[in-house]
């Protein structure tokens, strides 16, 4: 029924338009973005936790590594990072595989501008179907996001660990807890109250960073919104229209706002649970409201 759009009335035109395969790709990319976030967030938290713990480690090289990671990665704007890091990361992986799989390869890897590894070392293999390439791209994107946001998370957690009142840790020491036990039983549980606002902010920033996904070769919602919203002449589409980016971006705005709202509600609940019964203004407000 959608074969000749010029014959359709307003509503069915819209219905047809919004269900073109190209729009389906837009809807599909929502899922891509959500799953990226779902995987990246815990991964970044893990990187952050590792970074923060090594930054306060007593082993000097580990501490330097942790602090260097936090300072350097945090120092670079994410766009700049994405513009060259993924290619470097990809080349790094292929280089390692090349060393392992083709140890007696005669040609140099760098030939002029070209970066050439043996066919067996390609990531993914040249014969792999398209979805493998896409999955690999997605994996690289997750890794890059996790490295970048892990540095910020590390900084937040590092600060939170230092916010826990000293008396609380001292008491644990007095009761014979090892530094390790003190860390896991007292410091880590108490630090969340101090860390959550910072982590919450970071999550909000992470959500807003997903439009950068396209720089990493993943076709995200913003890419499709730009693509679909741009002015279309009748020559290349059955559904010509003027510059509709306003509408598509408005849709994106709604999507991001809704998503933020949901995140806020969840974070709020978490914070409520964490401040419950604590001797702070927040805990007090909660008590007075009850």
């Amino acid at each position: 029924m959608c074969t000749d759009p010029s014959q359709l009335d307003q509503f069915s035109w819209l219905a047809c338009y919004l269900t073109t395969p190209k729009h389906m790709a837009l809807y599909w990319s929502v899922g891509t973005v959500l799953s990226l976030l779902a995987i990246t967030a815990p991964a970044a938290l893990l990187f952050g936790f590792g970074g923060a713990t090594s930054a306060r480690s007593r082993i000097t090289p580990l501490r330097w590594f942790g602090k260097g990671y936090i300072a350097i990665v945090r120092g670079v704007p994410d766009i700049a990072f994405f513009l060259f890091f993924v290619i470097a990361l990809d080349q790094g992986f292929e280089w390692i595989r090349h060393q392992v799989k083709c140890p007696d390869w005669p040609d140099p890897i760098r030939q002029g501008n070209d970066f050439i590894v043996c066919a067996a070392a390609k990531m993914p293999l040249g014969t792999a179907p398209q979805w493998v390439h896409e999955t690999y791209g997605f994996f690289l994107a997750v890794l890059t996001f996790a490295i970048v946001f892990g540095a910020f998370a590390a900084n937040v957690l590092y600060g939170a660990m230092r916010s826990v009142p000293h008396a609380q840790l001292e008491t644990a020491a007095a009761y014979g807890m090892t530094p390790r036990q003190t860390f896991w039983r007292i410091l880590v549980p108490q630090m969340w109250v101090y860390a959550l606002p910072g982590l919450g902010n970071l999550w909000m920033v992470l959500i807003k960073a997903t439009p950068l996904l396209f720089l990493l070769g993943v076709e995200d919602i913003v890419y499709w919104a730009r693509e679909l919203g741009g002015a279309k002449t009748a020559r290349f589409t059955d559904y010509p229209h003027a510059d509709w980016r306003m509408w598509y971006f408005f849709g994106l705005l709604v999507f991001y706002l809704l998503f933020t709202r949901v995140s806020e509600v969840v974070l709020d609940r978490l914070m409520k649970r964490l401040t419950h019964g604590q001797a702070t203004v927040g805990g007090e407000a909660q008590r007075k409201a009850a």
Partner: protein
Amino acid sequence: MPSTPKPTESPVIEIRDLHKRYGDLEVIKGVDVTAHRGDVVSLIGSSGSGKSTLLRCANLLEDSQKGDILFNGEPVRWSGHPRRPADPSQILRIRTNLSMVFQQFNLWAHMTILQNVMEAPVTVLGRDRDEVEAAARSYLDKVGIGDKCDVYPAQLSGGQQQRAAIARALCMEPQALLFDEPTSALDPELEQEVVKVIRELANEGRTMLIVTHDMKMAADVSDHVIFLHQGKIEEEGAPDTLFGAPKSERLQGFLASTMAV
């Protein structure tokens, strides 16, 4: 007095010529304390004389600059400059045998009262969770806050927090206990309860160092009383002689106000 020191046994806690300063402020200026098994030693002295600091040094929470600290005859090993305890496993061994009740209680804010009491025995001593819970509840009952097991420290009155802190220390069932003004927030009735508990503990053979402002309590429970003044021991002795016939002028003045009322 429950037990007499046996000279063959080395003292549980021994502090020799301890010195401690905060920056330029010398707070402890050469103090010796000896406490044998089952001994109750009270520290009295005016505010700011260094009593809390002494307890915190004994527990190795503060690094001291000079002097020795021995547990069961084993001296704490130091290293570095400024010196710090050298052997983490030694510190740990000492601390698990030594529980402290802090002047400001320092309950862990993110745990309920029951969790506060159970935490160390379970994680540090590795005791069975169910057994510890039963013990914890009985200690909380003993100090009269058995009904407050599941609330957070911030929801307790001052005296209730102090009692929770005492229960937490007791539940470790340690060889020695350090009490920093354990009855400051308690009414006379509860204070009597605490005194009773201290006597029981002494009978069980536990050693105690108690900082207190309550001369009656000091007279009542101690085997030995130490009067600290500006970081030095001004006078010490059995409670009877110390309170009955104080020699130093400072102590006479200090005690005068107690009697005055």
